[in-house]
């Protein structure tokens, strides 16, 4: 059923209107209340919404023409918008686990005005995307633990008492009683055979109670084990009481390594973090201008290459930031190898861009893309995660304002980049809106003093705000 669109009366004394712009072409589908055309009358430009949903089938009055009020200016075929149009708007299926700020832009096709009838598929898909898959514990683990609990709770008090006295973990014992219960017999024979059996105990659970020697993990051969590392891995007192509901899972090798390194780093360096607010607006503009060009080469351009360029300038001015401490000596590194922390589903890794100061902006962008991609697909080579002299990390990736990163030993500084977004700021006593991001520099106060750190940050800020990067 077709519907006529008429020139509306915009005021009592108004007798005509001029079509300034058609916002839809013949053949376009339109929703009810979606802006259809613009008219002007006496210094007022009015957006006129469509009275119905359908397809614009005819435009009777062209742009620039003036007609009396109530003249039919267009015709819309009645009926709901075609389902295919709606489907086109639905976002692509969630692919990678890398969720978060993934594109919420598929609504481009719809009108800018608030939508009356959003496509129903969208909300579901978006909630799916919004939940990044957390690291799943091994299914095997879950079963084992619930049986453990069973054993623990269903063994008789006497058996539990014996276990306690003898320093035995009931869950280590195969129960022959009902439902896997550990009987008195079971525990007695376990104790007798303990000397022989200890080597065959099931895959070690990390935290053991008053048990015998804590399992000492094999320290990675590369470095002499630091006292702090052993400290980190020492089991210590049991952090839960008997009867608490817990699920114990051994750390993966990566997790163990990260745990060791983090504590160790804190013990080695005198950590201080300084912050600097940076106006990214000019750089953002530059980036916007280059994006399309880079994309044609298959390179995604983020803010990171620009930040790396700024870091390089900062290091040239303040070489102490690119050094290491060796006993009572300072080792200044001549090469600038920038590590970029990449969050993985299963942990964290820092691939390194070697000779970052010798790369162009495009080269840096390529390297960032490439290393990130290969980090996520576990294709990095060993030498690509070594030899870094400075690290950049991204606490802003999920919108965080800033963070206090831990220095990646044996470096002496690490830069955390917060979320870059539009914020109100004061410029020349007026309120303006700029794209602001906070840079956080954690540095080793053994060799970098606050003033140097601040000046380094100031250099970064100046480079980014000037946005005159060497290509």
């Amino acid at each position: 059923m077709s519907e006529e669109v008429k020139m509306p009366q915009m005021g009592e004394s108004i007798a005509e209107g001029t079509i300034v712009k058609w916002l839809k072409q013949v053949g376009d589908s339109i929703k009810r209340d979606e802006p259809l055309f613009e008219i002007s009358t006496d210094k007022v430009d009015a957006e006129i919404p469509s009275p119905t949903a359908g397809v614009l089938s005819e435009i009777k009055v062209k742009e620039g023409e003036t007609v009396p009020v109530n003249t039919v200016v267009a015709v819309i075929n009645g009926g709901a918008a075609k389902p295919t149009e709606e489907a086109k708007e639905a976002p692509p299926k969630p692919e990678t686990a890398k969720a978060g700020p993934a594109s919420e832009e598929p609504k481009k096709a719809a009108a800018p005005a608030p939508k009356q009838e959003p496509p129903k598929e969208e909300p579901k898909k978006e909630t799916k995307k919004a939940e990044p898959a957390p690291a799943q514990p091994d299914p095997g683990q879950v079963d084992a633990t619930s049986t453990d609990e069973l054993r623990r709770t269903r063994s008789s008090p006497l058996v539990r008492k014996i276990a306690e006295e003898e320093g035995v973990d009931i869950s280590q014992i195969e129960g022959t009683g009902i439902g896997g219960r550990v009987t008195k017999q079971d525990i007695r024979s376990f104790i007798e055979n303990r000397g022989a059996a200890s080597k065959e105990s099931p895959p070690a659970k990390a935290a053991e109670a008053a048990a015998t020697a804590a399992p000492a993990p094999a320290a990675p051969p590369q470095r002499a084990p630091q006292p702090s590392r052993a400290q980190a891995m020492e089991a210590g007192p049991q952090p839960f009481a008997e009867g608490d509901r817990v699920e114990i899972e051994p750390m993966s090798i990566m997790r163990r390594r990260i745990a060791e390194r983090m504590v160790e780093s804190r013990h080695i360096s005198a950590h201080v973090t300084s912050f600097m607010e940076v106006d990214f607006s000019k750089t953002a503009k530059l980036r916007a201008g280059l994006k399309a060009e880079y994309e044609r080469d298959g390179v995604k351009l983020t803010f990171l290459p620009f930040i790396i360029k700024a870091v390089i300038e900062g290091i040239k001015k303040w070489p102490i930031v690119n050094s290491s401490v060796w006993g009572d000596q300072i080792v200044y590194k001549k090469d600038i190898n920038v590590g970029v922390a990449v969050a993985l589903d299963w942990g964290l890794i820092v691939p390194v861009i070697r000779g970052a100061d010798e790369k162009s902006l495009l080269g840096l962008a390529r390297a960032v893309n490439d290393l990130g991609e290969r980090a996520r697909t576990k294709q990095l080579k060993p030498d690509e995660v070594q030899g870094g002299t400075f690290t950049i990390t991204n606490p802003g990736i999920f919108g965080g304002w800033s963070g206090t990163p831990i220095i990646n030993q044996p470096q002496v500084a690490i830069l955390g980049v917060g979320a870059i977004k539009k914020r109100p700021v004061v410029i020349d006593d007026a309120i303006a809106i700029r794209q602001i991001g906070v840079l956080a520099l954690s540095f080793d106060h053994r060799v970098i003093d606050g003033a140097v750190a601040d000046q380094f940050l100031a250099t970064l800020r100046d480079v980014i705000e000037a946005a005159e990067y060497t290509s």
Partner: protein
Amino acid sequence: MQAQRMVTPASQTQRLCEARWLAIVGYDDGLHLQESAIEHLRSGEAPEQLLLLEHPHVFTLGRGADSSNILADPLQLQTNSVEVHETGRGGDVTYHGPGQLVGYPIINLKPDRCDVHRYVRDLEEALIRTISEFGVTGTRIKGLTGVWVGNDKIAAIGVRIARWITSHGFALNVNTDLSYFNMIVPCGITDKGVTSLSRLLGSQIPMSDVARVVSSQFAQVFEREILFSDFPSPATSVQA
């Protein structure tokens, strides 16, 4: 930073409108603020707004604009740091700059003010009453929207309406550097001049004072209860 209520005599259950004096705001930023205010008004998250501000030097072209009305060549504009923007408002070309009070009423003309002519006339009325408080008599000229003092224009109007929610608005010359108008033919009108409060009164007037008066007169003419503040309210500051 206290907001002041400007109560008019019959202010029982009048619609609330927040008037905010924002000082200098970039033109683009002003557009974003308007978009944001429109959205929030539509969704009910925020009340009507009367945004009062100044722009850095900029020429803007309305929908019906004739670009031959900008007399300066692009290079001259650049050296004078003047931006040029095309906009979605009605009207021809005009100039905004420091010293000029720009007002963007973002209000809903429903249910009883759905008349575009009436809206423009009401804006003129509010501005005429405003300058009268400073001792200047303004008038209308039939067929020429805006507020005039003799043959010189002191306030320009260019408005956009979408589903009866207004945007863009007016520009009142308070301490404007009128020489910038030499670069354009304002509103396509060649034989009329421009003027400002400071030129007519012989001295500069504080912008925030004029902002307050405009808000108060706006409240009267539009029968709104105005909540005036000198800073943007947190709820409606521009979101990224």
